[in-house]
């Protein structure tokens, strides 16, 4: 069953057609790849999906629910979480607190409970801590829980972003170049983690990546963008062998 439906999506910046009549369907539980040359419009698609940009035209639906025109926050509530190509952590907060921000809408107490430290406060905070710890463990970050996010090395920062996104309990997780800046071993490990996340949380994942080992290793289907338009779409194996894709993107 289709979780995300994108129809005829497009946006322009001034004269630049960054994304043009994009159609894409992602099914529940799928691991889907979005690839394409630099500047093809991949990140822009993420920005459109998450309400950072408003499309000039087109339809986006998640679980049948229209997303166009909604604000980022509403879209997150509707079930899309993401990571960023240029890492965006809450740098002056602890690793734990970064994840707890992701949990914000799922563990609640009102302002007065917090200010007055009513019994609800301890209880909710405690279960938040536990849940955050669980997530951090998945990414092997539990030992860093008390550290400031800014002091983590690059690779761990990427993982923390994913953990934070997962904490919002999305239906669809968008990962923008999660393996950038990682060496092959780290990438390998990340692949396993992504697959584990998919299994454990029954997550649907859309990811942008230039590392073909990762894409071919875990994505079932891919869309290849080129100059904002779809160059190829379908089963990963097929697409990656498509001569047009090889020519425009993979090279020899």
């Amino acid at each position, binding site marked *: 069953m289709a979780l995300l439906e994108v129809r005829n999506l497009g946006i322009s*910046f001034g004269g630049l057609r960054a994304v043009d009549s994009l159609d894409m369907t992602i099914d529940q539980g799928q691991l889907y790849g979005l*690839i*394409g*040359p*630099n*500047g*093809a419009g991949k*990140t822009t698609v993420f920005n459109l999906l998450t309400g950072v940009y408003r499309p000039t035209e087109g339809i986006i639906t998640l679980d049948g629910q229209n997303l166009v025109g909604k604000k980022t926050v509403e879209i997150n509530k509707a079930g899309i979480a993401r990571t960023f*190509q*240029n890492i965006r952590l809450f740098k002056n907060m602890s690793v734990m607190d970064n994840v707890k921000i992701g949990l914000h809408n799922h563990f609640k107490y009102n302002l007065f409970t917090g200010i007055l430290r009513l019994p609800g406060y301890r209880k909710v905070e405690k279960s938040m801590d536990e849940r955050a710890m669980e997530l951090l463990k998945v990414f092997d970050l539990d030992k860093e829980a008390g550290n400031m996010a800014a002091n983590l*090395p*690059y*690779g*761990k920062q990427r993982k923390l972003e994913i953990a934070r996104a997962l904490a919002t309990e999305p239906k669809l997780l968008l990962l923008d*170049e999660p393996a*950038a*800046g*990682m*060496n*092959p*071993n*780290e*990438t*390998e490990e990340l692949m396993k983690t992504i697959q584990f996340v998919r299994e454990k949380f029954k997550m649907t994942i859309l990811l942008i990546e*230039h590392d*073909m*080992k990762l894409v071919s290793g875990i994505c079932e289907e891919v869309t290849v963008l080129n100059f904002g338009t779809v160059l190829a779409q379908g089963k990963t194996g097929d697409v990656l062998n498509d001569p047009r894709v090889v020519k*425009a*993107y*993979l*090279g*020899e």
Partner: protein
Amino acid sequence: MAMLEIKDLEVFYGVIQAIKGVSFEVGEGEVIALIGANGAGKTTILHTITGLIQAKSGHVFFEGQEITKLPGHKIVSKGIAHVPEGRRVFADLTVLENLKLGAYTRKDKKEIEESLEMIYKRFPRLKERRGQLAGTLSGGEQQMLAMGRALMSRPRIILMDEPSMGLSPIFVNEIFDIIQEVSKGGTTVLLVEQNAKKALSIADRAYVLETGKITLSGDAKELMNDESVKKAYLGE
């Protein structure tokens, strides 16, 4: 005599020691790869060489001259270019202005023009986007710009911090071709890369950095066949 020589370098961030006594050298015309895991200290070393971070102890020599305590811009004007991690293009300036800034230390207008043409030839995308603000370029486009900008200074040696990060496969190949070309053109290259396989394949020699210390060094092709390197960095 080595062109660039690093001796007993120690660098701290507050109380954390990031570099714990590193020594290595880069000979004229060589391509040297510096590989290592996340957080090993590669970026820190490059930053220390070009004076963006001050070393606690140790020395950096460039062509026999000590540059350890010089301010960054003086170091750069000696002929060292640095393509920094995360690109750091000037987002509010146009592509062309970024490139011109790359040639800041150069005087001859005509030669600068020529270099510009050369860069445009290598990166046609930059020519096409020369009037666009660099901040709105895609990640890969920014990487090209950062590289082009560094080359505009016609450096004697160029330090590159993960130049292939975020680039499409076809472009990764292209970047490595460009690096080789640059090297053939007589520029010495010190290359930091996560893509160790590619880096080692074009490098003459390489050093392996682990948590602030050099643990291995030697001929690049030999290292490529080293079991521990294979296991740790080549993902084989």
